[in-house]
């Protein structure tokens, strides 16, 4: 119980602090600053890569800055003229994927314009990718840099002409010296030289001269000036045959609290780590993540609100609106059908009345044939009339019928079959259709 509460306190504490991850000498350091550097956890790289146990459980999820050894970052020059960032990024991504065995390399690079092309910085060490797969991919980090870039930024802030011509910077400590070599403001290479106290100066001079030679070979130029910084109060006297300047007056070189093995990184302070001009390699996947993070957060928040509302509604409905149960199937339709049938029969037309009405309407027309069906009435008969009055007489008969039965369609006179039986006597036949 106590360990859990301790862990919780530690976690909540670390959450508020910026955690930095330093990789140095085969170890991964998780550090935070509070009156100097404090160690949160350190893990051996070999353990992180090989171990099966879950190393993540005690680690902070967010890393403010990942600092890798200088030699883990490689650089290549490409003579590409395009200024369009998307084209350049796509080109570098393709180029790096083709040139390196690690497909993840396309997620870890940055470029700067350099002479007639671009200088691409990328993570080149195999250990980084092994560590990335096992450990780093589960953490949230965006900026990756190295001590050389940190020192470059620190020097730029304090020394004006550091970006002009060939310049070197040497940081001296009792056990080692850390040297960076710059050409026109670009980091060319860096070295960390372990020194023995017995022949400190001889060893240092020898190594520096070797490095100066390497610089000359690479740039075809010489170093113009060396900036020196010592962690000791007394400066050792160096004679390298080049203009030197001690910069202790500009830059404080005492680590606020040095954790063993942090190396030159221990001399960095908050200002150095949060400098906006610090050159870093971004974790490109994290860029995509950052771009979508706001959308994801909004989606999650609205989704959770929606889910809560729907769940509440679900239980509210379940509680307050129970199923009405089985609904009785009342067969009113059968009653309706029965009543309809009854009404249909009750309202049926009387054939007897129809017959009487037709005979009454005929007057002096002699009805010989009658066919009465529910939908039609056929009437045939004889009429004594001259041709001129025949039409008038039949029309009169039809009008009387239509008065008795307004829902019948009378035939046109032309449709009536008329035959002459003898002079002055005509036979006729017509049909009345019910509407």
């Amino acid at each position, binding site marked *: 119980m106590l360990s859990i509460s301790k862990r919780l306190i530690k976690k909540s504490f670390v959450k508020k602090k910026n955690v930095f991850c330093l990789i140095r000498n085969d170890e991964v350091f998780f550090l935070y600053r509070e009156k100097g550097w404090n160690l949160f956890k350190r893990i051996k790289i070999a353990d992180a890569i090989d171990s099966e146990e879950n190393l993540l459980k005690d680690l902070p999820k967010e890393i403010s800055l990942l600092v890798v050894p200088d030699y883990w970052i490689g650089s290549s020059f490409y003579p590409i003229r395009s200024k369009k960032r998307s084209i350049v990024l796509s080109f570098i991504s393709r180029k790096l994927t083709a040139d390196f065995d690690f497909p993840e390399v396309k997620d870890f690079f940055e470029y700067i314009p350099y002479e007639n092309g671009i200088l691409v910085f990328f993570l080149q060490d195999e250990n980084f990718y092994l560590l990335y797969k096992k450990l780093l991919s589960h953490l949230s980090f965006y900026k990756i840099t190295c001590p050389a870039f940190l020192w470059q930024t620190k020097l730029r802030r304090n020394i004006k002409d550091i970006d002009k011509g060939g310049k070197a910077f040497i940081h001296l400590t009792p056990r080692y010296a850390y040297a960076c070599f710059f050409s026109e403001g670009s980091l060319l290479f860096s070295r960390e030289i372990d020194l023995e106290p017995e022949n400190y100066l001889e060893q240092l001079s020898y190594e520096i001269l070797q490095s100066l030679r390497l610089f000359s070979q690479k740039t075809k130029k010489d170093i113009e000036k060396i900036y020196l910084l010592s962690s000791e109060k007394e400066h050792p006297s160096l004679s390298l045959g080049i203009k030197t300047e001690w910069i202790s007056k500009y830059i404080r070189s005492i680590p606020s609290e040095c954790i063993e093995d942090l190396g030159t990184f221990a001399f960095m302070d908050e200002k150095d780590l949060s400098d906006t001009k610090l050159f870093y390699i971004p974790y490109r996947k994290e860029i995509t993540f950052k771009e979508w993070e706001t959308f994801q957060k909004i989606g999650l928040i609205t989704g959770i609100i*929606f889910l809560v509302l729907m769940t509440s509604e679900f239980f509210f409905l379940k509680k307050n609106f129970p*199923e009405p149960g089985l609904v009785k199937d*009342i067969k009113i339709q059968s009653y309706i059908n029965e009543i309809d049938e009854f009404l249909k*029969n009750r309202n049926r037309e009387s054939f*007897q009345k129809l*017959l009487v009405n037709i005979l009454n309407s005929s007057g002096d027309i002699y009805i010989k044939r009658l*066919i009465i069906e529910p939908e039609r009435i056929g009437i045939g008969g004889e009429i004594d009339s001259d041709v001129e009055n025949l039409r008038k007489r039949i029309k009169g008969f039809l009008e009387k019928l239509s008065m008795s039965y307004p829902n019948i369609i009378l035939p046109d006179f032309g449709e009536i079959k008329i035959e002459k039986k003898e002079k002055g006597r005509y036979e006729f036949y017509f049909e009345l259709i019910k509407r």
Partner: protein
Amino acid sequence: MSSILSLLKDRYKRNWCILVLIWIFGAILFYLNVRKIDRYIEKRRIKEENEYIENFLKNHMRKIKQIMEKKEKLYDRISNLNLGIIKVEEYVEDIAKKEGIKVKGIRHEKGNGKIFFEISCSGDVSDLIGFIYELESIWYFRILRLDLDLTDNGKYKITFSYNYRII
């Protein structure tokens, strides 16, 4: 399984998975809620309709029963179909005799729940009118066709249906 685990380990993809799952669950609940409301409204409507129908039947049952009883007159309740046919033929002959109509023949044809009769007869038109009146006064007879030749003594064909129910 391993692909799911690797998916969950990737924070970016995991967030998308969570987001999608939350919205899927939300959508499912939304659908269930809407369906429940719809079903509740539908069942309530049927229930209300039924209540209305029940009230209507309760209030009008007396009239409905009367109609049903009258409606029963539309069918002749017989125990044997042949007996029914004989009964109709005898009845037709009786009213024909009463009205002064001479029946020449009675033919019948069986239909579904009814029998079609065709009477061939002769006589005076005024007697025929009385005969038809008598025939129509019986609810289970329904005249379908009158084919009247009014020349001389008259030749008539009357087609009607006889509706029955076997009991």
